[in-house]
């Protein structure tokens, strides 16, 4: 039975940004998992959310959504519904009359991609809106990269979850992934820039196991690793979050 998960969370902000400005958010079982978090859990639910930079309150929405959708065990669609209702009731920060800019920017809504991963007995189930990805590696083989399967699949207009359900013309499309798990499998939840990096390196001939080792080596100094890869032109300048899950 493969369900005990050793989880490590690493984050790096965009160039010239602090981690305190990072608009990605990871959460495990309803609790935010910040950069450096290490957990060993049985059958956890993990969420990784990438707030859209164009959103006024992207960071707060990403953290709120990650915590909300990782707290239950139902479908991601239901989790999103619940998160939107709770967000609407949560008091907005600040107070007083908003400026014209705040009023107009808030009216556009806050948007994010969202990935939820459930580890159960012998299986993984992932649900995704947008291009935050789950990479599943077994030994030297890439079992899957979900929901984006090729580096060319990353664009500037992924599906997004809005904080206001009235704003999008249609509800978010939730993609599903089911696969068996065996002890020794590695799962990497990756926001889009680092997922694109992984797939580009793999398509360029790097073995998945080597990429996993590179990520493991990089994890203790993740900021230096992302800076080096950006400098080399291999990694887009974006917030980056990695949730590494070793299955035991």
């Amino acid at each position, binding site marked *: 039975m493969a369900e005990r998960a050793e989880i490590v969370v690493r984050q790096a902000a965009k*160039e010239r940004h602090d981690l305190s400005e990072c608009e990605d958010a990871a959460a495990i079982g309803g609790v935010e998992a910040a950069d450096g978090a290490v957990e060993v859990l049985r059958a956890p639910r993990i969420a990784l959310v990438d707030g859209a930079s*164009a959103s006024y309150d992207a960071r707060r929405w990403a953290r709120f959504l990650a915590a909300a959708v990782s707290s239950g065990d139902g479908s991601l669609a239901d989790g999103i519904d619940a998160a939107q209702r709770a967000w609407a009731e949560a008091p907005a920060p600040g107070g007083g009359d908003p400026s014209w*800019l705040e*009023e*107009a920017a808030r009216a*556009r809504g806050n948007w994010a991609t969202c990935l939820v991963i459930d580890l159960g007995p012998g299986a993984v189930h992932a649900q995704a809106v947008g291009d935050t990805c789950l990479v599943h590696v077994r030994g030297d083989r890439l079992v899957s990269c979900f929901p984006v399967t090729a580096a060319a699949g990353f664009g500037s207009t*992924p599906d997004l979850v809005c904080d206001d359900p009235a704003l999008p013309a249609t509800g978010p499309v939730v993609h599903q992934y089911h696969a068996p798990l065996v002890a020794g499998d590695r799962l990497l939840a990756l926001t889009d820039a680092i997922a694109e990096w992984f797939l580009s390196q793999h398509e360029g001939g790097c073995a998945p196991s080597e990429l996993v080792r590179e990520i493991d080596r990089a994890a203790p100094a993740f900021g230096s690793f992302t800076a080096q890869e950006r400098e080399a032109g291999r990694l887009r300048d974006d917030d980056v979050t990695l949730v590494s899950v070793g299955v035991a």
Partner: protein
Amino acid sequence: MAYSAAITRGNPACLIFMVDQSASMGDPIGSVPGTGGPRPKKRDVAADALNEMLFELCIRGAKAGATEDYFEVAVIGYSDVVASAFAGELAGRDLVRISQIAAHPARIEERSEVVNGTSIPRRVPIWIEPTSVGGTRMNLAFQLAAAHVDRFLRLHPDSYPPIVVNLTDGEPTDGDPSELAAAIRDRQSSDGAALLFNLHLGSVDAQPRVFPDDDVVLPDAAARQLFNLSSTLPGPMRSLALASGLTVGDRSRGFAYNADISSVVKFLDIGTRALELR
């Protein structure tokens, strides 16, 4: 791939608007035959479009706590005089960071807009006032735009290529701008060549031509000249235009002829939506 550089506060994008403020901009704008409706003056359409663009760029940079400087923007007004067209506290400023633009509208107008049959009040920030007097010193405006592009590229050589958008209703009164326009299009960042788009505001009631791919469809030498000053639309913008239902091809130029209000909005949207953030 060109025209794909990430836009961040460390690597902002540059937008330069040139707006014709000559006497003829006081004439009413054309409309599509048969559509009727009010015909505002071209100067009002141009000022409204620029204020709306600046508003949109401010929103894209707006963050809880602060406005991110994703953009640097200049608005050059030209008639007999060529100078910054910003009003209020920004008067006389050239390339201005978007946080400063957001912080300093000249004034706020209270307007109402109808949404689903309901009138909703809306606060509209104004930075550019409508003006129409004198001649059309477009060459001098291109020179100033080129200087802004040079200054920006010295500081941001890896940026998304600068975009220059010229709103005009006619011919320059200070000579042929072909060489100056070509010099702007030759400026390069590591992400591609600077883009020069021309938006011709029409006075006649005729179908607008947006992003044409050949100048033979254009009715006169002045229109063909503006077409030939304009950059070919880069691939990502062609994709956006196609997604918006416009007909574009590999040779489509960033040019609109005899634009009415609706095509002004569509043109500026396509021309700047490539600068959207993720």
